[in-house]
């Protein structure tokens, strides 16, 4: 599990016809005057169509960097990211993004409706279709009555629903989310988690979630990719056999849930302990 030089971790890459996204020996380093700072080591994993995959790891490991590389916002320094078999060199049309900071990712000068419609208008979707897709997306997240409001008139949880609606209306193949529920209160987080699970079932979306919240990763995912080390590498990859329907109370009471949670947590702890040791020593 720890000796992962070169080869992919068992279960991380699954060669399949139905692979939507693949990270193939992805590495990334920042260059500065002092030299190169490697952030991502040699990361390989695949995501199958319809799968819900979470990337977890201790804070500061480079999860957000990896997400930016995966979504085409940054180019890897080695290796490549493929979406539908094609190399990603810029943010692809098949991908939608939901970020943690909803207050900055939504445009305060546009109404909810126009926020959701903007990417579609930019993609030259026909006017009537923009309207129907926007309305359907807002309806799906429970904000049908708020389309004329502005983001700052809504609570944090509702703003994040707008960001999810924007992604939904875009009709992506892969929904990529970076700590999407980290800035809302616990109850709202549960509601949003269940919303994402429902939307994913209804629309058959593939979801890639980056989170530091292990409970969230286990509760939502089909598979969890654990990142550890410096530079970050895939330390483990585990299936979450909890079925497609999950419940905040019943699922979390399952012994399998507790076992998975414990395993991921101890791996992350070991990883961050190793990092601290290195810093001290």
């Amino acid at each position, binding site marked *: 599990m720890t000796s992962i030089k070169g080869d992919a971790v068992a279960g991380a890459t699954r060669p399949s016809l139905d692979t939507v996204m693949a990270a193939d020996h992805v590495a990334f380093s920042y260059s500065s005057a002092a030299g190169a700072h490697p952030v991502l080591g040699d990361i390989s994993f695949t995501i199958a169509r319809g799968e819900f995959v979470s990337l977890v790891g201790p804070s500061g490991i480079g999860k957000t960097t990896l997400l*930016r590389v995966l*979504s*085409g*916002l940054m180019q890897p320094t080695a290796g490549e990211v493929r979406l539908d078999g094609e190399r990603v060199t*810029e*943010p692809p*049309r098949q*991908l*939608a*993004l939901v*970020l943690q*900071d909803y207050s*900055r*990712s939504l*445009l*305060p*000068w*546009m109404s909810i409706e126009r926020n959701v419609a*903007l*990417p579609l*208008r*930019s*993609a030259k979707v026909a006017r009537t279709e923009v309207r129907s897709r926007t309305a359907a997306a807002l309806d799906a997240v429970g904000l049908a009555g708020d389309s004329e409001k*502005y983001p*700052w*008139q809504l609570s944090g949880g509702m703003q994040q629903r707008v960001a999810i609606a*924007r992604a939904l209306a*875009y009709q992506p193949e892969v929904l990529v989310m970076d700590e999407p529920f980290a800035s809302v209160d616990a109850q709202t987080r549960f509601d949003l988690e269940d919303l994402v699970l429902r939307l994913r079932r209804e629309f058959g979306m593939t979801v890639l979630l980056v989170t530091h919240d292990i409970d969230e990763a286990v509760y939502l995912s089909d598979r969890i990719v654990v990142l550890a080390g410096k530079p970050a590498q895939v330390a483990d990859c585990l299936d979450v056999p909890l079925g497609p329907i999950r419940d905040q109370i019943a699922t979390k009471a399952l012994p399998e849930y507790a076992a998975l949670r414990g395993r991921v947590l101890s791996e992350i702890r070991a990883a961050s302990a190793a990092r601290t040791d290195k810093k001290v020593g």
Partner: protein
Amino acid sequence: MSVTVQALRGVRTRTAGAGRCSNLAPQLALVVLLLASWDLLVRTGVLPASGAVRLSGIAGALGDVVFTAALWTAVGDSLTSWLVGLAVCVLVGVPLGALLGWRDGVYRSVRLVLEFVRATPPVVLIPFVLLFFGPSQEMKIFLVVLGGVWPILIQSMYGVHDLEGTLVHTARAYRIRGPRFFASVLMPTVLPYLLTGARVSAVLGLLLTIGSEMVTSAPGLGRAIFDAQTSNDLAGMYALVVVAGVIGLLVNTVFTVIERKVLSWHPSQRPVTS
């Protein structure tokens, strides 16, 4: 940067809705009180008659001067050079500032120089521009540009630099680019900064226009005030000062109204919700 944002918020934070109207009465009361005190101080001789004029005198002179062509020619001269100068400030300052704010390295390296230039009182430029242009409209326009371009340039730079990661990443991820990025993302981010910069530039430009007219006797309202003073027409001088004050107030009001209309979404303008 944080200081500027603070200042920007500080300048613009105002109470919304009903607050505005109920503030009007005490404000007017203060104006009446100040005018009455002035009159009292002049009448009792606390302010010397060699320099101060009673309200009735000023009002009378104001009533006379408003109907003279000379006043409106002077006002026209002042406003023309001011407006032309301001237009040049916008045309030069906005793109140049945007260019400087776009790259982080450039932004950081030019900041110190710009803060220095901005901190230098622009009136020190008067002797310099006078040498080049003489006491003319061109001199005033050049002075307004040299002195007034900085606030709008610096605000434009700050505004573009304020385009931060999350917003840009979101726009890129959703492939919003070109003219749509400019109109839907870039401009609305920069506009609050530009309007603040334009307002400061406008007020500064007016000051430089009228001030330079006083010092160099270039044609305009400033020169009219100076002439009234040197010919010992004190009431007339005060009347012209009132005219200049009203122009300044109008300029500020116009900008406030524009900001309120254009930036209804901005934290400084929108009603307090909590």
